[in-house]
Structure formats: C-alpha cells, structure tokens
C-alpha cells in the first residue's frame, strides 16, 4: 500500500486533532474561560476607572491571550505522547515538521481562533475605543498563530517531564515578548490615532518566520523527547 500523499497526511493529522478536541469540548472551552476570567480580574484589581482601563486594555488582553495559549500547550502533544500516536507520526514516511505544522494549525483553530473571536467582547468591557477594535482583532489574528508555533517548541521539549506545565511557561514566555510588544503596541498606537501598519507588518513577518522555522525546531525537540 502506498503511503498517502503529503497533503493528505497533513490534512488527516489536522482533522484528527480537531475531531478529538471537539468530542471533548471542555478542553477547548477551558483556556477560553481562563482568558475571560483573567481579563475580568483586572478591573477588579486596578479599579473601574474607564480611562485607566482603556489605556491598559491592549496589554491586559494580550497578556491574557499569552497565558491562555500557554496553558493550552499541554494538549498539543501530551495525549498523543501518552498513547503512542506521536511515535507513529515520527515513524511515518512524511516529514515530521510538516505533521507538526498540521498539529499546530489544529491547536490554533482550537485555541487562538476562539480567543480572537472573543476579544471584541472583552475590549468592550474594558472601554476600548471602536477604532482600536479592528486593530486588536487583526493583531490577535496575526499574533496567536505565532504563539502556537513558538509554544509547540516548548511543548515538545517538555514532553513527559515532571513539572512540565510550569517549565513550559519558563521556556516559552520570554520568547513571546516580541509578539506582546508589537501586538499590544499596535492597539495602543491606534489610541493616539497613529498608524499601526509597521506593527502589523512585523507581526506578519514573525508569523512567516515562525511558520517556516518553528516546526523544524519542534520536530527536532520531539525526536529528542521520543528517544
């Protein structure tokens, strides 16, 4: 029997991850609820003053998105590692980086995309100005896939380790800083009526670089973890 083509293999991995996750939908909802709760805590902590919240909103929403993505990274590989699927993927005739990319895409559809969809609601809560809204959604659309891509490296490195969940935050969060800076920076710039195009271009550049290089690093890390 011939192995399926490259594209079919990647699509199968992608669809499989989606199907599994949707059958256990609480897994998908938990990071989303976390995102909602963290953002809700900020007004309680710093006070309900509308102007203060408006200034803080881009940073708060972005940091919450970072943390929510990071919390969901455990789901990326650990179940497949536990039941041996990951070893089968590594043995497959297809290049592992491509299969990893398919898994990362599924992870983004399940985590990043819901975060993006929910962000306008939170932005309203924090009194973000209407002209910032579109920028917020665009930055999250460009930035959250990078979070999933970089996160996949951390998730692959900490596979099967004790204290993996906390460790992954230590590895991944410093790498997230550029995304946070330009993501939140673009939204803040819009508040002053400035153009956010430079920020968005850089985020897009990170996305392209991440999509090209991160799967290779994650695949190398997976092979080390599977040894």
């Amino acid at each position, binding site marked *: 029997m011939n192995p399926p083509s490259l594209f079919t293999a990647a699509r199968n991995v992608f669809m499989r991850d989606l199907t599994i996750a949707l059958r256990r939908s609480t897994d998908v909802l938990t990071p989303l609820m976390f995102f909602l709760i963290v953002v809700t805590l900020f007004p309680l902590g710093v006070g309900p003053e509308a102007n203060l919240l408006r200034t803080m909103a881009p940073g708060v929403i972005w940091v919450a998105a970072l943390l929510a993505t990071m919390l969901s990274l455990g789901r990326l590989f650990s179940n497949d590692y536990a039941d041996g699927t990951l070893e089968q993927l590594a043995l497959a005739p297809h290049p592992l980086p491509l299969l990893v990319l398919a898994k990362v895409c599924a992870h983004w559809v399940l985590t990043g995309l819901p975060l993006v969809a929910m962000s306008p609601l939170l932005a309203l809560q924090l009194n973000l100005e209407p002209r910032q809204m579109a920028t917020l959604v665009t930055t999250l659309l460009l930035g959250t896939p990078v979070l999933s891509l970089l996160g996949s*490296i951390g998730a692959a*490195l*900490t596979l099967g*380790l*004790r*204290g*993996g969940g906390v*460790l992954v935050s*230590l*590895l991944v*969060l*410093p*790498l997230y*800083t*550029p995304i946070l*800076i*330009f993501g939140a*920076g673009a939204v803040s*710039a819009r508040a002053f009526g400035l153009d956010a195009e430079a920020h968005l271009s*850089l985020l897009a550049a*990170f996305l392209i670089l991440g999509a090209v*290089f991160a799967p290779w*690093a994650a695949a*190398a*890390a997976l092979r*080390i*973890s599977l*040894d």
Partner: protein
Amino acid sequence: MLSYAAPKNFYPFAGKLIPWIGFAAVVTLAFGLYLGLFVAPADYQQGQSYRIMFIHVPSAWMSMFVYVVMAAAGAASLVWKTKLAEVLASACAPIGASFTLITLVTGSLWGKPMWGTWWAWDARLTSELILLFLYIGVMALQASIDDPRRAARAAAVLALVGVVNIPVIHFSVEWWNTLHQPASVSKLGMPSIHPSMLAPLLLMAVGFKLYFVAMVLVRMRYQILERERHTQWVAQVVESEK
C-alpha cells in the same frame, strides 16, 4: 589535537590548563581593577560612581558572549553528537546566568546615583532581564531531564531557538521603549571614552574572558567525572586522588 575531544584525554589536559588560565585571570583582573579604581581619573559628570562600569560593562559583554558560546556548543553537539560539546554547553549556562545577574545588579547600583532609580524600563535593561530568563529556562530544562545526553540535546535546541530570538527580542524591546520614552536611550549612550578609562575596561574584559574559560573548564571536568563515573579511567582518577 582531536584526541583531546575524548573525555578521558580532556580531563587531565584541562586540569593542567586551569591553574595557568586562572592565574592569568587573577593577574589581569587585579591589574585592571587597579587601573580602573586608582589610576583612571574621575569622570567629570559622574564623579567616582562611574567606576562600577569596569565590572558592569565587561559582564554585560560576557552575558551575551557566553550565550553565543552555549548555543554554538549546542549546535555542535546536535550535529556531531560529541560529548565534549554537550558538556561545554551545559557548563556555560550557570556561568552566563551569573554574568547576567551581575550585570543587572551592578547596573541597578549604578542607576541609583545616576538616574535616581534602581530600575528603569530601558531597552537594554529589559533585554538583559529577558536574557536572564532565557538562561534560567535552559538551566531549568536541563535540571528536569535525568538522562544527561537527552538533557544536553534538549537544552541545545532551546539555546538555538533563543539565540535566533535574542536579536528579535532586543530590537523589539528597543522599539517598544523608544515609542514610549525616547529620552532614556540616550541616557545610556556612552560618550567617546578616554584612553585612561578604555585601558582598564579592556583589561577587565580580557580578565573576565580568562575567568570564564577557567571556570568553564572546572565545571566541564566535574561534569565529565559525573557522566563517566562507571568507566575504568574515572575509577583510576578517583583512586589516585585519594
């Protein structure tokens, strides 16, 4: 020359090198400190307190240099699977983290009299802090994997990802900062430096490098002993040291 890459030959060779390099480091550092603390004139703006620069600037250079060494050794260990490169990479991490910490602490001590604050969200300060986090990540990853070879390879991947990211992080932080408060970047901007201050600075930089080489060799020797503890030659070394 290549035969020194075998741990068995490297161990005694490094043992012979360490006293010489360590001695050179002590002499260079002592001379550099003497020139820096007693001979160099006081700064016309900063008075005496600028002298912390002779510790601060070389350790800042080292903090980046050691990370690059660690990543290069990691790459070598991934490509050629040499044990010595793995040992070198993992010996670098704590030393580099210490240099980063020294940079942050001395910078903070210097910042208080000069800027009137212990900490400013200046571009360089922030990227140095993130560098410390990257070091801590590498060390934490190494510590949580029991098998030393697997730990070394995982840490090498992380160090390589980090080394790609360091320029990106640095420039993003710089841009982020200049967007908010453009004045503070020029605060740190070093004016052209007088030779009487440059000489001790360069001496200290060389001294720090020598110190790093000596320390890394010491750490590598201990790690080699621990990794090879089941071999014949380590048993002989332990026997002869008794």
